Each structure stands twice: as structure tokens, then as C-alpha cells.
């Protein structure tokens, strides 16, 4: 075979040392963001920036340097969060952030390994991995941004889409029952379970800080507006209109049974810290039981 391949253009490092990098550092949170990566790709009114910002503040509150934390994400709009953070970040395949994070956390138990991903990624294609990671109690912190649809692919139905809601693949209304994410995570064995919205920013930062402090599998669901994908077909208005719904319909009920934590953004949204228990992690049990016995043989 005679091969005639397209030309390869050489890499130009100077293009990376651009105007953005010169301005980097002007904002107090820039130390947590990679130089030259902002502006982000998210739509106006999207809640993802709020969640990312809350995570940075939680790290600050816990006095964690970026070298003590690693973020793993899956695919989708929320999957892009990893690429903006100034730390070791891994943008994996669709649904596989949790098992990737499991391997990373077991190899480096000193790192705070956090999964930052969406409802479709974590509960549809990645659902099996999530429940098993919770069951094992691996030391992985999951932040699940729930916007009730697949945003990046253009607003399709997700396992969180409410009954009757319209999406680009449920034009006549959704007939599938949605998952209750906090109920599922708690039933699978998560040691910390909370739900907040992007309106509850201070509670969210507090919960993220608590989960970063905790050993084991933690789960935080954050409701976030998706004005482009979900709001438009469901006539929910702009991002600000969703924030108003969050304010009007949310009810803080710490300690509520996660299975009973109602979620209907037009009527009642139960938020709060639902589960906060302590039990040994997979890694700790492995060290204390398996390794000890194996060495004694």
C-alpha cells in the first residue's frame, strides 16, 4: 500500500502562553483554576459554574491545596468541570468516572478523590458502578449535578426526567418513573447523602466541605438549572426563573428519610443532609483485615 497521509502541524507552545494566562491570578480563586481555561463552555444560566465555585470554596474552607485533591469526571456538560480545575483531573468515558476513581483512590488513599458528574452519566450508563462503589464504601466523593436531562447532546430524556416532562426524545411527555437519587445512594450504602440546589450555595459549600472531611463514599445531589435543554420544552423560563422555583419550593429537612425526600420543582423540593454515618472504608478494611491476615500466613 502506498500511504499519502495528511500533514502534521507542529505543536506551538507559545500559543498557550496567551493573553488569558497573563491575566490569570487577578481573581482570588484563580489558584484553583488552570490558567487559560476560562471562559468555560457552559450556557448562560446553567448551574454548573455555581457548583464548581462551591467546590472551590469547600476546598478553601478545608484548607486543602489542589495537590491534595483529584477530580474525576464522566461525559456530559458536568464532565467538563474537571478540565478547569488546577489539579490532577481525569475526564473519563461515559459512566465510568466512579470505577476510575475507585482505582485512583485505592492506589493513592492520601488523595481526596472526587467524582464530578451528571445524573445521566452517574445513574443511567454508570448506575451499576455507583451502587457498587457505595456498597463497598470506597473513599470516593461524588458530586452529582442533576438537571433532569442530557444537556450536552441536546436535551434528551434521563433517568431523572420527571413523569410527563418534555425532552427532545419524549416529545409527548415522559412515561418513565424517575430515580430518587438520594434514596438510591443511601440504600446502596453511602455514608453521607445530601441534596441541595444551586440556590442553596452556603449549605452546598458546607456539605461539600463535610464530605471532603469524611472517609468513605459520599453523595451530594445538586439540582441545577438547564435553561437550554430542560427549561425550554418545559416552559420553565431562564436560569433565574428556576432559581426562583428553588427558593419558593424548597424545604430544608435535615435527617429526612432519603426515600421520602420529595422532588418536584414546581411543588416541593426536599433538601438537606439526609445521611451522615461512619463505617470503615473498603481500603481500611483491606488494610486491617485482608493484609494483616495475609501477612500472618
Amino acid at each position: 500500500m502506498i500511504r499519502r497521509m495528511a500533514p502534521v502541524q507542529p505543536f506551538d507552545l507559545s500559543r498557550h502562553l496567551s493573553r488569558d494566562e497573563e491575566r490569570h491570578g487577578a481573581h482570588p480563586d484563580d489558584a484553583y483554576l488552570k490558567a487559560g481555561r476560562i471562559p468555560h463552555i457552559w450556557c448562560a444560566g446553567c448551574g454548573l459554574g455555581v457548583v464548581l465555585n462551591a467546590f472551590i470554596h469547600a476546598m478553601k474552607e478545608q484548607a486543602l491545596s489542589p495537590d491534595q485533591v483529584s477530580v474525576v469526571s464522566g461525559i456530559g456538560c458536568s464532565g467538563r468541570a474537571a478540565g478547569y480545575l488546577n489539579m490532577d483531573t481525569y475526564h473519563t468515558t461515559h459512566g465510568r468516572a466512579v470505577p476510575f476513581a475507585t482505582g485512583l483512590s485505592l492506589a493513592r488513599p492520601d488523595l481526596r478523590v472526587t467524582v464530578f458528574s451528571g445524573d445521566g452519566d452517574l445513574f443511567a450508563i454508570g448506575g451499576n458502578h455507583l451502587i457498587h462503589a457505595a456498597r463497598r464504601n470506597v473513599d470516593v466523593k461524588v458530586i452529582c449535578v442533576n438537571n433532569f436531562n442530557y444537556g450536552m447532546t441536546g436535551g434528551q430524556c434521563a433517568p431523572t426526567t420527571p413523569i410527563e416532562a418534555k425532552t427532545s426524545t419524549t416529545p409527548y411527555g415522559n412515561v418513565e418513573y424517575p430515580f430518587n437519587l438520594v434514596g438510591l445512594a443511601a440504600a446502596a450504602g453511602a455514608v453521607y447523602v445530601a441534596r441541595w440546589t444551586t440556590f442553596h450555595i452556603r449549605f452546598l459549600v458546607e456539605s461539600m466541605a463535610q464530605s471532603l472531611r469524611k472517609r468513605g463514599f459520599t453523595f451530594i445531589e445538586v439540582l441545577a438549572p438547564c435553561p437550554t435543554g430542560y427549561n425550554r420544552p418545559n416552559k420553565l423560563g431562564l436560569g433565574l426563573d428556576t432559581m426562583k422555583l428553588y427558593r419558593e419550593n424548597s424545604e430544608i429537612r435535615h435527617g429526612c428519610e432519603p426515600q421520602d425526600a420529595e422532588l418536584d420543582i414546581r411543588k416541593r423540593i426536599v433538601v438537606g443532609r439526609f445521611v451522615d454515618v461512619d463505617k470503615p472504608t473498603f481500603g481500611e478494611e483491606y488494610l486491617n483485615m485482608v493484609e494483616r491476615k495475609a501477612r500472618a500466613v
Partner: protein
Amino acid sequence: MAGNNRAVLTGEHFLNGDEASAEGALAAGCTFFAGYPITPATEVAERMSRRLPALGGMYIQMEDEIASMAALLGASWGGAKAMTSTSGPGFSLMMENIGLGMMMETPCVVVNIMRAGPSTGLPTLVGQADVMQARWGSHGDYGVIAVSPASPQEMFELTITAFNLSERYRQPVFILSDEIVGHMYEKVVIPPADRIEVWPRRKVSRDPSCYVPFLAEEDLVSPMACAGEGYRVHVTGLTHDEMGYPVITDVAQERLVRRLVDKIRKNARNIIRVESRLLEDADTVVVAYGCVSRSAREAVEQARSKGIKVGMLRLITLWPFPSEHIRCLSEKVRTFIVPEINFGQMAYEVERCAGNRAQTVLLGMMGGTMHRPDEILDVIEEFAR
């Protein structure tokens, strides 16, 4: 074995191929194993679950093979040498994250003890039909390294080789074994630790401020900054530039994916290994690998005793394919005979490289058993001059 906490069990052992592969991994410095039970590869996982904890390593049984492969990549980025073992159905599930491993340039080793497919197929009986899947199984273009052991001793040795190649070229490396070699018990000699060559991870020595994570060195591979080492690297399965950041353009695609293909293609001479037997005067050559090469060797010896000028080329490396070896041989031999347990996979490669200069004869079978020496001998006698 109980009570032996050493990574390298120097001495003579009676092991099956699966167990020997596990010992090879430990000798190569493997400290992380994630897997899912599957016949006929389970003995690798069982051996690792018993041996790793005492050595300070970590064994985890994941919920499926997709998760196993993902955990391997995570552990490798955490600095561990990582391995999994599986068979056809699991290998199919791993393909997604094998592609991620290629794109993220993540060293790790995948052992595939081949059984007959498709689908669930023959769970406890031999096959060799995953050879092309190993080459092309995950979507997109990338270079592949796969080795094919023919004995428990080679399962030990080539597992070490696989780890070394995965660290040198920074990608998942496959051990394409088969049920017969995996379950066969033979003597395995494990040398002293200081006689085993183990290649380390290519570490970064630069200052983090001027580190470009995917800027390749002369051999088209870049050193690897793992998690928590202070380099703050972004690693993605998206097409990315040398900084590691996603760049969704044809220019970035050409530069990255061309390098992923070229790093194996251009280093092929340093990777490929074959075993040549009686080729000097041969006009017929049997090309075989894995368990079938054992029958082929016997058939070639029987044919020689009958005065037939036949030789054998045993493929130790399946990918990259030893194209130059076949091309050179095709200048002087008339026939290649390729016995394999499939409907022709390596035979296509042999035919491609032989061109019109020599004919290629496939001796195929669909699996469940391997070729007997007399079956190969019959074909040698039919086609030899």
C-alpha cells in the same frame, strides 16, 4: 506457596499458565489487580487475591469488566502497575476503556485467556479468535502491542515483557493466551529477582511550571506525571493537545492520533519477537502461535524426519505483526501454512505480507480443541514440494 510473602518466588514450580502469569506480574512489580471472574482466566485473579495483600498490593473484584478496566486506568494514574485478566466476553466489555487507556496513554496489562466465541461460546474450551479484536476492538485508530505465550514458562516471562512494554510505550498491552496454555501445568523456573529485567515508569524530571504533559520525546512517548506528584495534569479521552486540553479540530486529531499509531509502528523493530526453527533451507513454513505452535512444532519435526524441507515461524509478538519477517521469507519459500483456532485471522496478515510471492494456506478450526500434529503434517505433505 502459603506463607511466602516475597514478590519473586525464585525457584522451580509446577504451575498452570494462569498462575504463572500472576507470578510474572508480581515479579514485574504489579501492585494492583482489578477483575471479574471468568473461565478460563479466573485462576489469575485467584492467585492475585491470595498473593497481593501480603506484598502491600491491592486486589479488588469489580462489578464487571468495564469497571475493572476503568479501575486499572485509575490505579495506573495513581502510580501503580496494574493488571486484569479476562476471556472473550470480558475482553469485549473492556474495549471501551481500552480505548480510553490508549487515548490517555496509560500503562497497564490485560491478560486474555482466549476461549471459543462468539458470545458466551465455549466457556471452558480453547479458541484463538480474539486476535483481530485485540487489534481493532476499540473504535478509532491506535497502535497495539500483544504477545502470545505458548507455555506456562512463557506466561511468566511474557507477562514481565508486557509490563515492560506498557511502561516503555505508555499504553495497555495485551497478553493473548488461550485456554490450553492457561490451564496447562508445567515446570516454571523463576529466576532470582536481580536477574529479572523490570523497566520503570517514565517519570517526569522537569519543573512543573514548564512541564508539557503530552510533548513526546524522540521515541514518540512522553514521561508520565501521575496523580499527586504536583504537576496538575488534565487527562482526557477527548482529542487533546500536548497540554492535555481538549481541542476538537482536525489539526489536533492528526497530530495526536498519528502519534498514537506511529509510536508502535515506528518502534515495531524493538517490540517484535519471533522464534525461527529450521528456516534456512525451508520451502514451506508453518506460522503458528500459542497452544497450536506446540502441535506445529511436532508436525514440523515429523515432516523433517520424512525429508520434507519445512520450517516454522512462531509468533511471540502478534501485534505489531512481524510483517518484515514474512516478507523476507516470502522471497524464498513457496508456501506458508497457518494453523489457528479461528476462521483465519493471522492468516490474513501472513497473506497480506506474502503477496503473490508465496501462497498462504489456512488450516482453521472453530475452537473447542486444538490441531493434532498429524492434521498439520497432512497439510504440510499436501503442499510441500
